[in-house]
């Protein structure tokens, strides 16, 4: 009976009037806002790509340059790394350091493989005279895909630092909050990549 009345009281106070949120919620919320702003940076680059994708200046176009098999493997690596990242988050949830490290190492390996494939693709294109200075289309391509690659690289450095933090600082709330933010970041990069895969590679002209 008492429990029932308190539940009613709980319902009567609207969420917006319940006072400050717990620290964990505030941190995650702030990071969500950051991710949204980051996605806007990507949307500006996507917009630029959309405008310039046909401007090849008599140089090579996407169909000629992109190897879809390569990109498919890249995509597989990145999507799988999101899965291992989620596994890592579950290990953090139950505070199992060994499992967390396995998740982190797999994520690192898959992320590094993705980066390696991407950099090989870039190097090959530049070697064939299709670098970013060749045409506006290639400028937009290298900037958009490169920006995503830069994010992946930063994410990998961040992950290394997080493993180090877990070992030196232990499961402090601040470390756990940061791991949660990292997961959000890593999954967001996947979402952006889906856009890159669809618009840049499948939509190549």
């Amino acid at each position, binding site marked *: 009976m008492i429990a029932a009345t308190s539940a009613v009281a709980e319902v009567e106070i609207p969420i917006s*009037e319940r006072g400050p949120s717990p620290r964990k*919620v505030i941190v995650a919320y702030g990071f969500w*806002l950051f991710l949204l702003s*980051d996605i806007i940076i990507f949307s*500006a680059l996507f917009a630029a790509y959309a405008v310039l994708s046909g*401007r090849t*200046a008599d140089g090579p176009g996407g169909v000629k340059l992109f190897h879809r098999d390569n990109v498919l493997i890249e995509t597989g690596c990145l999507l799988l790394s999101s899965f291992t990242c989620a596994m890592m988050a579950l290990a953090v949830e139950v505070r199992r350091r060994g499992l967390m490290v396995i998740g982190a190492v797999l994520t690192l390996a898959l992320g590094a493989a993705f980066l390696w494939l991407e950099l090989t693709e870039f190097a090959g294109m530049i070697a064939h005279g299709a670098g*970013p200075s060749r045409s506006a289309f290639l400028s*937009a391509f290298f900037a958009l895909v490169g920006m995503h690659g830069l994010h992946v690289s930063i994410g990998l450095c961040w992950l290394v630092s997080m493993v180090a933090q877990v070992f030196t600082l232990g499961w402090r709330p601040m470390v756990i909050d940061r791991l949660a933010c990292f997961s959000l970041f890593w999954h967001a990069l996947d979402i952006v990549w889906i856009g890159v895969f669809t618009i840049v590679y499948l939509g190549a002209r």
Partner: protein
Amino acid sequence: MLGKLTWDAIPLHDPIPLFAAGLVVFMLVGVLALVTVKGWWPVLWRDWICSVDHKRVGVMYVLLALVMLVRGFVDALMMRTQLALAAGHAPGYLPPEHYDQIFSAHGTIMIFFVAMTFMVGLMNFVVPLQIGARDVAFPVLNSVSFWLTAAGVLLVNVSLVVGEFARTGWLAYPPLSELAYSPGVGVDYYLWALQISGVGTLLSGINLTTTILKMRTPGMGYSRMPIFTWTALASNLLIIAAFPILTATLGMLLLDRYLGFHFFTNELGGNPMMYVNLIWAWGHPEVYILILPAFGIFSEVIATFSGKPLFGYRSMAIATMAICVLSFMVWLHHFFTMGAGADVNGFFGVMTMIIAVPTGVKVFNWVFTLYGGTLRFETPLLWAIGFIVTFVVGGASGVMLAIPPADFVLHNSLFLVAHFHNVVIGGVVFGAFAGYTYWFPKAFGFRLHDGLGRAVFWCWFIGFWLAFLPLYALGLMGATRRMQHYGNVEWQPLMIVALVGALVILAGIVLTVVQLVVSVRGRERLRDASGDPWDGRTLEWATRSPPPAWNFTALPQVDGLDAFWEAKRRHGGMLTPAQGEGAGPLELPRPSALGFFLALFAFVGGFALVWHIWWLALVGLGGVVAAGLARAWQVEHEFEVDPSEIAAFEAQGARA
């Protein structure tokens, strides 16, 4: 070793920049010497530079804005003097390449480092107090934001002495800003300064949005938020949505300039008009980022000095959010002449007129709040009424420019210059001064000198009209913007009137400094012991002035709009503590040097990139990473406030 940097970068042969640079260096050395002689370094370092208290960060933002206002205004005065002289065969005293730098620096500084900085400072100071919070959501990040802004400011000012500034106007349109046409370091200074300070602004936007949405005191639902907090929310949402576009756009221009990309070049498929579209997709929301907090300030000021609740609170909040959304749908009106065709121009013309509707709603709300109120003509109210009169004219000329055929004639003329100064000075600057006068006693515990404050207002008000009404006329007569010289001597009398107006504004700026000095020296006489000098309505007036580091000993329970006003009516100004508040110990964030060092290394990196000193750029980047890692391994983020300190504060008769 030093990249492009040689002794030629110092303008030893050019008297005007050399003199200006000498003056700046002299003043800087003077300030540093004073601090050293007085032995203020420890206090300055601990209580200000490393402070993460939102109130102190806010004060530092406003101080930075006031200093940059002087710098930006000197540029304005030089331009007005040049144009008052350079008619017919007279060449004036500024060569074109110098004049071009001055108008570019003036616009860049006034928008990014005066208007933006001032508004962010006021929001930082006021918002947590208004929503009954102890600080912002991420206090250390707040300090980082401030110092990144300061690093941008420093970079712009260094360009005065070492090298040159952009000659491309405040938005650096390509292809002029591309390497082919601007091979010097001016555009690079512009780009890196804005990239660094832009990151600061974005982080500040995230911080304040999270604060407003997640940290309001119990009971303060959305329909009970003070209207300034509403406008701050809208403004910071716009920062989150718009500033990344600026970062991306300037990033693309940087790629063009540094790595030979072809986003905006004339060659190999680049598209300069894409830059113009992207930059205004940020730029138009930007003007609302500036004006919305000003609207909030006027709403608070008008309600307070009318002694009655704001008329149409809900419509005000809705109008604010409507402007927030619509501001993203009008960007093309900045370049109707691009040639997008009648349909596109028609759409954006109509959208521009539509955005005037919520603004009109606001004006009527202010007027109806004044109507029948018990008016007290204190200085902030003077600014507010001066704003209503001035801003309506600026808005009307804006609607004129929204008509595409009219815009084809008026585009790029002094009419446009008069229009945006009319809204930016009449809106943002008047709002900044209203807020500065209104909240100064809250920040420092004493009022600003009243008579001098009134004099400042009248100087700005009269000076504004004298300076810009002639520009409307000149624009209609065919005078274009950004011209260093004109042949038609019939324009000269109006140009001289404009100069006189600028001189009257100069008097206002000088009086602002005098007012500050006089007020600080006479602070005992101007002391406000109550914490509520204006008979305020919102929570910030419920704490003592200056508020303690923890703002509220017990977070108040809010059960309506104008919480403090209601508390004064019902319980003699005593706020009801929220459930479970006031019992436990209080924890505050520790001071942190992170912001200072991050910004220092960002500045070093920015400077190095401007001059192509690649090893130094790596040092800057390494420093930023190292500072971040050092922070990551810092464990103690908070400290417990000494209970005796709280008890001593409470014993002094604090009301909250």
